[in-house]
């Protein structure tokens, strides 16, 4: 599944787009004629399922800013098979109707469904895979509650507080799926953290600075590793070409060499001296660089194949980190936490670095670096033009269920409702490279969608139905 297209997002003109989108939701204009699009037959649905449904939706929010009016959606084989006004319903299909249909929410910073030990492990390496620590048997009731609240998928991370957390995975929260079916993307991001007080109280400023240098050092070792591989392959080709030519010449002169040698042998025998062979020299074969899974993972991040999510909070480290990673041009950086990110907002906008905010209720037991983080942080960053993502913080598994409420209170403290909805759907999907399956309501995509009785994230709206990989997992009754 090659999905490593490094896209470049045109920096959206914040105010204009938000206004247009807001209008289209509230004012509900006649809306463009929704063209009926059906999925190509050979599309391989994410998870094969025999169930099929027809949804009659008053309004479909395809993506933030694009709304279609009274449309029918055919869900079959785990994905959205057809979407349009005149989708005909196969005989005997179960029909559902609802006021608003939108993409399921995604928690890009979750701890739900991961073995607790791996979550707290501080000795993880770049090559450690969170996909190995998915616990399909545990926390089933928490995952059902999360589905009922509208959160259908999450990015989970082993070593959440470790300096290097390893490769995080995106999983579906449907507890009835097997581990293989639940994994949307086993290697979604590479996670690191800088300047956290990991259980031992706050670090002093020099250690924190040391951690920024360590991030840059890691990325450099990844680049060097990939560079060595390329150079080795180049040198090997050169060497093999040279050896082939050399061998051809040796083959050619073999008869002559054999004659000379026989002469030499006879002469040595004559003078009763020991015959000395001719000294053969050839240039050494280039050494194959030894395989190192950690450096390979770092190389993928340094080359932008894996987004790099770094949890960092203080202004000093933010500045230093942005300066340190300036040189790595294909790096796709995402900053998590970023409590004091307002101070570096311009650099973030200019380098299109998105910020993953965990709206926190400022717990009294919060660690030193979280002090000062309040519900208004997301709103202030968004006003400054930074692309904001919303996560539940990845420390306890039960927070993922309440991500929509946390997003709502972020909206109550200054974040545009439109931006919050984007952050929970296509924004998260794009930053985790799963935009080809999740994040919008489009034909061909996996059917992870919600049916609501009002606009998303409003206090009066409740979730009626939830589809996960085409399976109906939540109905108003259960």
């Amino acid at each position: 599944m090659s999905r490593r297209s490094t896209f470049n997002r045109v920096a959206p003109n914040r105010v204009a787009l938000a206004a247009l989108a807001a209008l289209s939701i509230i004012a509900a204009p006649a809306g463009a004629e929704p063209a009926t699009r059906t999925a190509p037959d050979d599309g391989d649905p994410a998870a094969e399922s025999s169930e099929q449904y027809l949804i009659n939706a008053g309004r479909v929010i395809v993506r933030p800013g694009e709304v279609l009016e009274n449309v029918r959606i055919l869900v079959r084989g785990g994905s959205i098979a057809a979407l349009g006004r005149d989708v005909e319903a196969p005989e005997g299909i179960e029909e559902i109707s609802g006021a608003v249909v939108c993409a399921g929410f995604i928690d890009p910073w979750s701890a739900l469904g991961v073995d607790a030990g791996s979550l707290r492990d501080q000795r993880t390496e770049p090559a450690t895979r969170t996909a190995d620590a998915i616990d399909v048997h545990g926390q089933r009731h928490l995952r059902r509650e999360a589905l009922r609240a509208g959160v259908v998928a999450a990015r989970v991370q082993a070593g959440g507080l470790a300096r290097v957390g390893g490769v995080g995975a995106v999983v579906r929260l449907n507890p009835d799926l097997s581990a293989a079916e639940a994994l949307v993307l086993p290697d979604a991001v590479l996670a690191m953290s800088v300047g956290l007080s990991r259980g031992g109280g706050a670090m002093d400023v020099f250690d924190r600075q040391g951690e920024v240098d360590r991030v840059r050092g890691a990325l450099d070792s990844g680049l060097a590793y990939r560079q060595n591989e390329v150079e080795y392959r180049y040198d090997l080709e050169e060497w093999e070409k040279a050896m082939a030519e050399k061998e051809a010449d040796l083959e050619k002169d073999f008869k002559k060499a054999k004659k000379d040698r026989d002469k030499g042998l006879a002469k040595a025998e004559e003078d009763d001296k020991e015959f000395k062979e001719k000294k053969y020299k050839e240039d050494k074969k280039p050494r194959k660089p030894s395989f190192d899974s950690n450096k390979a993972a770092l190389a993928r991040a340094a080359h932008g194949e894996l987004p790099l999510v770094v949890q960092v909070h203080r202004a000093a480290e933010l500045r230093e980190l942005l300066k340190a990673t300036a040189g790595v041009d294909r790096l796709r950086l995402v900053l998590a936490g970023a409590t004091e990110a307002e101070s570096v907002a311009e650099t973030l906008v200019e380098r299109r670095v998105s910020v993953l905010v965990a709206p926190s209720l400022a717990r009294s037991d919060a660690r030193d670096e979280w002090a000062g983080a309040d519900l208004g942080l997301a709103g202030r960053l968004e006003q400054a033009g930074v692309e904001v993502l919303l996560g539940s913080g990845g420390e306890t598994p039960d927070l993922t269920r309440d991500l929509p409420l946390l997003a709502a209170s972020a909206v109550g403290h200054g974040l545009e409702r439109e931006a919050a909805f984007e952050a929970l759907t296509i924004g998260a999907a794009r930053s985790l490279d799963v935009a080809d399956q999740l994040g919008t309501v489009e034909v061909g995509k996996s059917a992870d969608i919600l049916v609501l009785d009002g606009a998303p994230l409003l206090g009066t709206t409740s979730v009626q139905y939830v589809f996960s990989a085409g399976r109906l997992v939540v109905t108003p009754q259960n």
Partner: protein
Amino acid sequence: MLILSLALASLAPASKPLAPVSEVFAIRAEQLHLADGTVLENGLVLVDGDTIAAVGSGVSVPAGAALVEHAGHLTTGLIALGEHAGGSGELRDSTRTVLAGGRLAHAFAPGHSQLEALLAEGITSLVLAPSAGSLSAGCTAVVKSAGDTVVSERAQLHIGLSSASLLSNRRPTSYSGALRDLEALLSSAHGDFGAAARGELPVLIEARSRHEVQRAVAFVAEHKLRGAISGAPLAGELAADIAAAGLSVISDPRSPGASQRSIDALLSLAEAGVPFGFKLASPARHANTLRMGVALCVRRGLSPATALRSLTVDAARIAGVDERIGALATGRDADLVLWSGHPTDLTSSVKAVLIDGQLVYGEL
């Protein structure tokens, strides 16, 4: 957005509290929430000094009084039934297990820095309750989040029947010992305990797990006390017994990630008609758990009207000060909060807060 009919904007910026708006003024809001849960379209509140003069849609604005138009919701101030802000740690005397005659009001520090965060969340009054760790730490007090008004110095008598109230090296060390000592205090019939025994002073009984709630309800029934159970997350599963004993419940805040069972317990309290309110776990930095807790319950099916009542009318009644605060009604203190949307909807924000008729947060 806000039509300013008078030059109110020239008033001092919101951050400086206690700026008087003007002696008599009126606020008209698109949605005005009354005590009984009904919503008045385009209702008007007339404020005279520090009390509410009149509430209604047909109220006439006297000449010369300022009129503020507000396109949004208007409610009375929210009430937190347990709060340590302003007391800064002196709220429990650890030398004695029973502090007869203790008054939490004396620990109140008006203008304490931590109170500001309460205003941002629309909380205008709070109950100073002791932290756990003693059998009885005296009487709680009801104070305002701004200014130095003490609504009541002797609101409820604190009694500790939870595992946190019993220390292992101080008498009593067990539930049976605690019940014996409390019975002795009640039968002594003087001071606060006498007033509680005669039913004059409501009690606040700390209980955490369900068997502690059961024990507290039996104790209250046996001695015919009145008051509230404080802190038990699953008290709702004993809603019938609590209702039978005429008690109400002061519930822990429900922060994000709270178990669904503890949220459903609140819903069963509402079904059984037991009045309940919320307290804040710790100082101001937790002020936003009040609305989050209520939003969690609304998502599980609690009606927004009941939810709002638990933050206003019911809370005032539990604290025994419902004739002073907790409702938009003539004669009550002029504690008003202007919202952009329905207060239990997290997406709505606080536009302005008035306490005793003074603008203390935001601008009109």
